[in-house]
């Protein structure tokens, strides 16, 4: 593909914003473990902790991810469909809208007017700029959704009966998933939090707010995760020297993530009183269904790696693992990401279990779990994607492959050193999201060794984050250009020539999803407009 036709500037700009804020958020994360461990008395500052948790969470969960996913999506669309991006001015308009939103939210965050954590749970209320900023970030990302859907539609129109290339199929799945996902938080922000923060209303129904946020809170994880899965399917088999075990299984996994990832948010509300047990159980069953696409992905990717290893001379039931090209950063990242996905997935099973959730609810176990899934599986694959794409985007060879591999290992070790004690603390009953526990009891003192372990994990991860950004920065600024490397996508063992309609489009799945969402969220949301409440009103007026 002609390099001028690729949206290089657009992708690079989005990704640089993503990685710059990622480094800032990583440093804030390190401050938080230091603050909680109370190792340095001068850093013990409760307000600073809540400010930092909010900024760290918002940046990592919303800003870093959205900018990265959007930039990666544009580049994937152009390179996999081998055509120019549709409507670049719209894409840039989306970018600047997102940037404006970030600047507004940053103002609220760093002036101490948004210490409300990254979950949008009233009655905690931030300055209005925080919510308007969040809304603009979401609005800007809608440009990306539109462009992805239009490009897929145009490609299908120009290639009737042909399978949409898998990278674009996965990217469009994610765009549609994001469209559905953002509805919950968008309604909450526009109709409840912005009026509340501006003083237009003096009360809102927090049950309705939490239910709306639950709509968004779980599928957003799959919005982050799908680009990582995309890299596992489309880059890893090729990087390992083999082929993708099955194109169709990847499509099934993406569709299952779309369908089962959305209507399951009530496992975040198991302990909340305003939803009946039956609804929670229904969402609980759905949550376990998400394990299926994850298993499909794990199986397909490991099978692809096995094929590659055997093509490289690997033998035996486990001996083939030695034949993998461990010096390839994409392959290394994939193996590390899958290991962390297993550990994080196990923790997720405990969270999703209706009864066992009570053991870990609102404890340190929960951030331990989601840091394994997000900081582990997702971010490690984002690193690998950046290392792989940077030569293509900048036209220069990566500054240091060795540094990239060291960085991946450091991040992997760091996240384990950070999160294993975090899980243990949760089982010991340590509450999450509080600055300090000023009780001098044997129970609290017993937590100290684990917190010191987390500080060590934080040190390792901060070094790894800095190494990552440094490697990309040095690649970008180095003088010698090696020419833009083509992005190479893995070919399946059995080329896909024809597919049934549902594996090549989204109309059927959107209808199924609409019904599923109405069933799972209809009555639980509508009840707030009919049940008798005292003082609080649903929207606040």
């Amino acid at each position, binding site marked *: 593909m002609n390099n001028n036709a690729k949206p290089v500037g657009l992708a690079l700009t989005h990704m640089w914003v993503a990685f710059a804020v990622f480094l800032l958020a990583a440093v804030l994360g390190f401050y938080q473990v230091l603050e909680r461990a109370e190792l340095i008395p001068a850093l013990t500052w409760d307000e600073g902790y809540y400010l930092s948790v909010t900024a760290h969470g918002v940046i990592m969960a919303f800003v870093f991810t959205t900018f990265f996913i959007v930039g990666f999506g544009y580049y994937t669309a152009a390179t996999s469909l081998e055509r120019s991006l549709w409507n670049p001015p719209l894409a840039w308009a989306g970018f600047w809208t997102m940037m404006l939103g970030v600047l507004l939210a940053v103002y609220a965050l760093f002036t101490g007017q948004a210490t409300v954590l990254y979950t949008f749970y009233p009655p905690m209320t931030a300055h209005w700029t925080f919510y308007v900023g969040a809304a603009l970030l979401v609005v800007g990302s809608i440009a990306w959704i539109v462009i992805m859907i239009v490009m897929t539609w145009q490609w299908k129109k120009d290639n009737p009966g042909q399978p949409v290339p898998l990278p674009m199929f996965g990217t469009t799945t994610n765009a549609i998933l994001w469209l559905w996902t953002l509805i919950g938080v968008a309604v909450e922000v526009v109709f409840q939090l912005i009026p509340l923060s501006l003083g237009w209303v003096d009360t809102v129904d927090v049950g309705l707010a939490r239910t709306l946020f639950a709509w968004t809170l779980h599928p957003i994880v799959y919005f982050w995760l799908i680009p990582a899965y995309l890299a596992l399917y489309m880059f890893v088999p090729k990087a390992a*020297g083999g*082929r993708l*075990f099955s194109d169709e299984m990847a499509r099934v996994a993406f569709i299952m993530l779309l369908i089962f990832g959305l209507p399951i948010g009530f496992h975040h509300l198991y302990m909340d009183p305003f939803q009946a047990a039956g609804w929670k159980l229904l969402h609980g069953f759905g949550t376990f269904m998400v394990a299926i696409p994850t298993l499909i992905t*794990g*199986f397909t990717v*490991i*099978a692809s790696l*096995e*094929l590659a*290893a*055997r*093509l*490289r*001379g690997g033998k*035996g*039931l*486990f001996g*083939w*693992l030695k034949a993998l090209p461990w010096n390839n950063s994409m392959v290394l990242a994939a193996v590390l990401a899958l290991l962390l996905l*297993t550990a994080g997935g*196990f923790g997720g*099973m*405990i969270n999703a279990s209706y*009864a*066992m959730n009570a*053991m870990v609810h609102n404890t340190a176990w929960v951030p331990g779990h989601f840091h394994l899934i997000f900081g582990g599986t997702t971010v490690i694959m984002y690193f690998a994607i950046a290392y792989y794409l940077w030569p293509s985007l900048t036209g220069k060879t990566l500054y240091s492959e060795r540094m990239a591999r060291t960085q991946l290992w450091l991040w992997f070790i760091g996240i384990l050193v950070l999160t294993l004690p975090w899980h243990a603390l949760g*089982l010991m009953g340590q509450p999450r999201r509080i600055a300090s526990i000023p009780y001098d009891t044997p129970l609290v003192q017993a937590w100290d060794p684990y917190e010191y372990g987390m500080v060590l994990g934080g040190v390792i991860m901060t070094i790894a984050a800095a190494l990552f950004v440094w490697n990309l920065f040095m690649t970008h600024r180095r003088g010698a250009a090696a020419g833009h490397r083509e992005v190479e996508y893995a070919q399946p*063992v059995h080329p896909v020539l024809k597919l049934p309609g549902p594996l090549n489009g989204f109309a059927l799945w959107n209808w199924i999803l609409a019904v599923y969402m109405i069933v799972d969220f209809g009555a639980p949301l509508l009840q707030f407009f009919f049940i008798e409440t005292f003082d609080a009103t649903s929207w606040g007026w």
Partner: protein
Amino acid sequence: MQQLSEEEQQKILESPPKGTLAVILVYAAIFIVTWLFLYFGRFLAHGPVN
């Protein structure tokens, strides 16, 4: 890396992923043991809610 003929490559690509199944079985065993430990060792060990 060894040189393989087209035929040998095709044979490998068509072969069942036995190594993958073995890896997944190991994973499953670790999952089950850890889950049993948490369920019986930690969750039930808390006793009934008073």
